[in-house]
C-alpha cells in the first residue's frame, strides 16, 4: 500500500458547526495527525468553492485520501464522493467525520465540543488511512424474464414485460393458462372471470414476445439477478396443435375422474379440454391418470394425438423471475360443517362456478338436484381459526365473493332466502357498497362470535344452529343448501418452489416479501419478484395490479441492460479461508457458498447477491471474510483512535 497522503477539510456549516466548535483549532489539530499533509477549514464545504478547494488540494498535494469533517454522511457522502471522483481520486477514498449532528448540534460547551470534534476527526483519519479504492462492478442483464404461473397476476406481468420489449417465458403447470379466475364465475356483479381471462388471452396471442410453456414446471434456478439460468421440465401434453377440438377422443376415453376445472361439480375424461376457450386451445391428456389404452389415438382423424411424447427439459437464460403461482382453495375435512356428508353442502368455489353460464348447470343454481328455496353461506371456513385445522389469517376475498354471489342468487331467484352467517364482514374499501346492496336485496346477515355455527343433517332436512350475536340467542335456520365460504391456502407445491427459488415463507405459509409494507412485490433475493396470492390472500384486482407492479420492478432491474453492484460488499481472502462454512449459514441472502478451488474448500461470495451487511465478516473465525469499506482493520483503527491508539494488525 502506498503511504497515505490525507487531506482534512473542516466545515463551518455557517454557524451550525463553527458556532459551537472551534473549527480553526480542529483543522490545526488535524495537521498533527499521522499521514495528514493538509488540513483546512471553510464556511460551506458542500458549496461549489468548498468542493473546488478539495479538488485543488488533491491535485496539488497529490492526496490519496480525503476526510471531510462536516455533517452526517447520510446528507453529503454522495456529494463529496462525487467531488473527489471529479478530481480523479477513487470516490471510496473519502471518509466523513460527522461533527454537526454528532457534535455541534447536540453539545453547547464550546471547549468540550471542540475536543470531541478533534477526536471524531482523529477517528475518521485513522479509518481513512486504511481505506481501499473500490470499483462498482457491472454485470450484463439478460433482456428476458421468467413468469411462473399463468393466472391473472402472471398474465398481467407477462403482458407488461413483453410490451416493454423483454422476452417473456410464461411457465404454467396445468395444460391451460387462466388460473382460477377463469373458473370463478362472477368477480363482481357485472363481470365474469372467464371474460377477463379470455380478453387477456387475446392480448397474449397478439404479443410476439411471450412464449408459453403449459404442463411445465421450474425444476432448477441458478445464477443471480440479471443472469438466472432456469431449467424447465415440459411434461407431455400428448395432443399436438393439429387438434381441432372435435371432441371425439373424449367420447372414447375410458377413464373418468372428478373435474377440478369445475371444482368437482362434474366428471371429466383423462383426455379433456379444461374449459371452453382454454389456451392453448387443444385437448390435453392427464398423464397422471391416462392408461395409454390408445383409444383416443385411434379415433382422432387429425393425427393430433401422440402418446409417445416424452417430457423434455428446456434451459432458459433470464434476467428476472416473477413468481405468481397463486393459491389453493382451503380443503374442508369430511364432516367440517357437514362437508362431504350431504349433497347440498358445497363450497363457495363450487357455487361461484355453478353461477357461470359455462358451468355444468349452465349457470342455474341447482344443488342436490333442485333449486334451493333457502341457502346459507357460512363464512370463515378454514380462516380466522373458526374450525380445527383452520388458519389464523383472514382470507380477504371470501366475504366479498360470498356477498357478490348472494346478490347474483337474489337477482336470479328473488324468492330464495339467502343467509350469510359471518363473524365480521370484510367488505373493505369500496366493496362496502356490495354489503349495502346485499342488505337492500334482503340477504339476511347472521353474526356469530366465538361459538361457531353447527350444521345439523336431519331427516327433516338441513339446519344451521347458530348463536346470533346481536340478539344473543340460539337460532335454528332451516336451509335447502349450505355454502362453505372456504378460504385460501398456500399452493400445495410451495415446498418445491422454495427449494428451487430459495424464497422463504412467513408463519402463515405464504411467501415472504422483502418488506411487508414498502416492498410487497419483491422477494428478499434481488431479481425475484412476487405477484398475486403467492404472498397471501388477495382479490382478483389486487392480484392483477401486483402483476403490473412486479413487472415494474423487473423493468427497473433490467432496463439499463446491465446491473451495477455496490462495491461495499463481502470479499473472501482465499489465502486465509479454510472453508469452515460458518459464513454460509449467517448470510441472509444465501450469497455465500463453498467452492472447491484446486482441491481447497473456500467460501465464495456471489457479488450480485451480497447486500453488504457484513455479518459474515463478524462471524468469520479466520478473518478471511472482509466487509469492504468496513473491514476489521478499518473499524479497529477507528476504535483505537478514540483513545489515540494505533492499530497493529
Amino acid at each position, binding site marked *: 500500500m502506498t503511504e497515505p497522503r490525507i487531506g482534512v477539510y473542516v466545515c463551518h456549516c455557517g454557524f451550525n458547526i463553527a458556532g459551537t466548535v472551534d473549527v480553526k483549532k480542529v483543522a490545526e489539530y488535524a495537521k498533527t495527525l499521522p499521514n495528514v499533509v493538509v488540513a483546512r477549514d471553510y464556511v460551506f464545504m458542500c458549496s461549489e468553492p468548498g468542493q473546488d478547494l478539495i479538488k485543488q488540494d488533491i491535485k496539488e498535494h497529490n492526496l490519496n485520501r480525503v476526510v471531510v469533517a462536516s455533517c452526517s454522511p447520510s446528507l453529503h457522502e454522495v456529494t463529496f464522493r462525487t467531488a473527489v471522483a471529479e478530481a480523479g481520486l477513487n470516490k471510496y477514498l473519502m471518509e466523513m467525520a460527522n461533527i454537526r449532528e454528532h457534535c455541534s448540534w447536540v453539545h453547547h460547551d464550546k471547549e468540550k465540543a471542540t475536543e470531541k470534534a478533534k477526536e471524531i476527526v482523529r477517528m475518521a483519519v485513522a479509518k481513512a488511512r486504511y481505506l481501499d479504492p473500490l470499483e462498482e462492478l457491472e454485470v450484463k442483464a439478460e433482456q428476458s424474464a421468467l413468469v411462473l404461473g399463468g393466472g391473472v397476476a402472471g398474465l398481467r406481468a407477462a403482458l407488461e414485460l413483453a410490451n416493454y420489449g423483454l422476452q417473456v417465458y410464461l411457465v404454467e403447470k396445468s395444460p391451460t393458462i387462466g388460473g382460477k379466475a377463469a373458473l370463478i364465475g362472477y368477480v363482481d356483479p357485472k363481470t365474469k372471470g372467464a371474460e377477463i381471462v379470455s380478453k387477456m388471452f387475446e392480448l397474449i396471442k397478439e404479443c410476439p414476445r411471450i412464449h408459453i410453456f403449459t404442463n411445465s414446471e421450474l425444476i432448477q434456478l441458478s445464477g443471480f439477478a440479471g443472469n438466472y439460468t432456469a431449467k424447465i421440465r415440459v411434461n407431455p401434453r400428448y395432443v399436438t396443435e393439429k387438434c381441432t377440438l372435435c371432441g371425439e377422443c373424449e367420447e372414447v376415453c375410458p377413464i373418468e375422474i372428478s373435474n377440478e376445472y369445475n371444482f368437482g361439480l362434474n366428471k371429466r375424461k383423462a383426455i379433456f379440454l379444461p374449459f371452453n376457450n382454454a389456451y392453448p386451445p387443444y385437448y390435453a391428456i392427464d398423464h397422471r391418470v391416462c392408461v395409454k389404452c390408445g383409444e383416443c389415438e385411434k379415433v382422432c382423424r387429425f393425427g393430433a394425438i401422440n402418446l409417445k411424447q416424452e417430457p423434455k427439459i428446456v434451459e432458459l437464460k433470464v434476467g428476472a423471475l416473477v413468481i405468481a403461482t397463486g393459491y389453493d382453495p382451503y380443503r374442508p375435512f369430511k364432516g367440517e360443517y357437514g362437508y362431504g356428508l350431504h349433497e347440498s353442502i358445497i363450497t363457495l368455489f363450487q357455487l361461484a362456478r355453478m353461477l357461470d353460464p359455462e358451468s355444468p348447470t349452465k349457470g342455474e343454481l341447482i344443488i342436490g338436484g333442485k333449486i334451493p328455496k333457502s341457502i346459507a353461506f357460512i363464512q370463515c371456513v378454514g380462516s380466522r381459526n373458526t374450525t380445527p385445522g383452520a388458519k389464523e389469517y383472514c382470507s380477504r376475498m371470501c366475504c366479498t365473493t360470498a356477498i357478490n354471489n348472494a346478490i347474483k342468487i337474489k337477482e336470479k331467484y328473488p324468492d330464495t332466502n339467502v343467509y350469510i352467517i359471518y363473524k365480521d364482514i370484510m367488505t373493505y374499501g369500496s366493496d362496502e357498497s356490495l354489503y349495502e346492496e346485499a342488505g337492500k336485496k334482503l340477504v339476511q346477515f347472521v353474526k356469530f362470535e366465538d361459538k361457531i355455527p353447527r350444521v345439523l343433517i336431519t331427516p327433516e332436512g338441513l339446519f344451521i344452529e347458530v348463536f346470533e350475536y346481536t340478539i344473543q340467542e340460539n337460532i335454528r335456520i332451516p336451509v335447502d343448501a349450505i355454502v362453505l365460504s372456504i378460504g385460501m391456502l398456500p399452493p400445495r407445491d410451495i415446498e418445491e418452489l422454495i427449494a428451487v427459488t430459495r424464497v422463504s415463507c412467513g408463519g402463515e405459509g405464504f411467501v415472504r416479501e422483502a418488506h411487508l409494507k414498502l416492498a410487497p412485490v419483491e422477494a428478499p433475493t434481488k431479481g425475484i419478484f412476487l405477484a398475486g396470492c403467492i404472498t397471501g390472500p388477495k382479490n382478483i384486482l389486487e392480484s392483477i395490479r401486483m402483476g403490473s407492479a412486479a413487472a415494474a420492478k423487473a423493468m427497473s432491474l433490467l432496463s439499463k441492460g446491465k446491473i451495477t453492484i455496490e462495491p461495499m460488499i463481502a470479499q473472501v481472502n482465499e489465502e486465509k479461508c*479454510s472453508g*469452515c462454512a460458518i459464513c*454460509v449459514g449467517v448470510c441472509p441472502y444465501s450469497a455465500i457458498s463453498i467452492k472447491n478451488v484446486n482441491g481447497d474448500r473456500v467460501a465464495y461470495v456471489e457479488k450480485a447477491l451480497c447486500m453488504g451487511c457484513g455479518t459474515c465478516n463478524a462471524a468469520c*473465525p479466520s478473518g478471511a471474510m472482509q466487509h469492504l469499506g468496513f473491514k476489521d482493520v478499518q473499524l479497529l483503527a477507528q476504535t483505537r483512535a478514540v483513545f489515540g491508539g494505533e492499530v497493529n494488525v
Partner: protein
Amino acid sequence: MTEKPKVAWYWCASCGGCEESFVDLAERLLKVFEAVDIVFCPVAMDFKREDVEKLPDGSITVALINGGIRLKEHEEMVKLLRKKSKIVIAYGACSAWGGIPGLANLYNLDEVIERKYLEVPTVENPKEVMPTKKTIVNIPEAGIKAEIELTEPLPVLLPLDKVIDVDYYIPGCPPTPDVFWNALQALLSGNLPPKGSVIGASQKSVCDECPLNETKPEKILVKEFKRPDKAMAKPNECLLAQGFLCMGPVTRGGCKSLCPQANMPCTGCFGMLDGIVDFGGKAISYFGSILDYSPLEEREIKDAYEKVPDWVGVVYRYSLAASKLGHKARLKKVERIKEVTEI
C-alpha cells in the same frame, strides 16, 4: 570449520510437555545435535545462570523459551537470554499466550496461592504453611545458620512477549514434532518470515486440514451446544455441525487436526490466525452466529448458553493471558506470602 549455531533452551511456567515435544523428534533429534550446540538447557544439562551471564551478548543464535512468565526469576532469566541471543522464540502455547496457567489470571494472586497451598485436593496442609519470601534457618547445635530467599510471583502470568521482545512463535500445547521440525528447518536454512510471525504452522485454520470439513452441511446452524464430556460425538461428522464447541475454525492449523480426527473437539492450542486480535472474542462471535434462534426466543438462547458452565475456559483455554481483557488481578497488596519466617 565454521562453528555450529548455539541454542539455548529454557523453561518458565510450563508443564514439561514442551520438553517432551523436543524428545518426540525421535531420531530426527540426532540431526539436531549434528546441526547445533546446546549451550543452556536446565531440563537436561547442568549449566548455571552464571555460565549464561559469562557468554558475550548476542552470542546465542537461538533461544527457545517455553512456559509463561509467572515469577520474578522467569522475568530475570528471559531478560538475560534476550540480551545474550540473536533470535528469541516463544515456544509453545504458554510462552506465546500464557497457556493453561494463564487462566489463573481470572483470580488475584492471593486466591491463586490459597487454591494452590490449601484447597487443591492433592494438597494436605493442616498447618496452613504458606510460602515465604525469606526463610532464616538457625540451628546452632547443628551449626547451621542460613538465609534462603524465594523468588516472588508476579501479580499476573504474562506471555513472553509482554516481558521481552520476541522474534518468532512456535505454537501448540505442545508443538507437534512436525511443527517444531518445520520451524527448525526454517531457522537453520535462515529463510524466515517477518519478525513476529508464527513459524512451523499453517496460515489457515484447523478446518482446512480437518477431514471432517468435507462432511459439513450447507449451513451450520445448531439448537444447542454440546461438550465431549456430556455428549457422544458421531464419528466422521463435523463436530461443530453436531453442536460441539470445536475451536477448529478459529485456530491456526499445522497440527494436522489431531484432535478432531480422534473425535475430540479442537481446544485451540495453536492460537489465532494473523489478523485476529482476540481469540476468545472471535470464537464468541462465531459460536453466537451458528445458534439457530431469534431474539424473540430469549429463553432458548439463554438456556443454550447456560448449558456451558465455563465459556472463558472454552474460548480462552490457552490465550487468556494474551487476551484483551483477560486479567482480573487487583492491585492490592498480596497478603498470603509472608515476608520472613524463622526456623
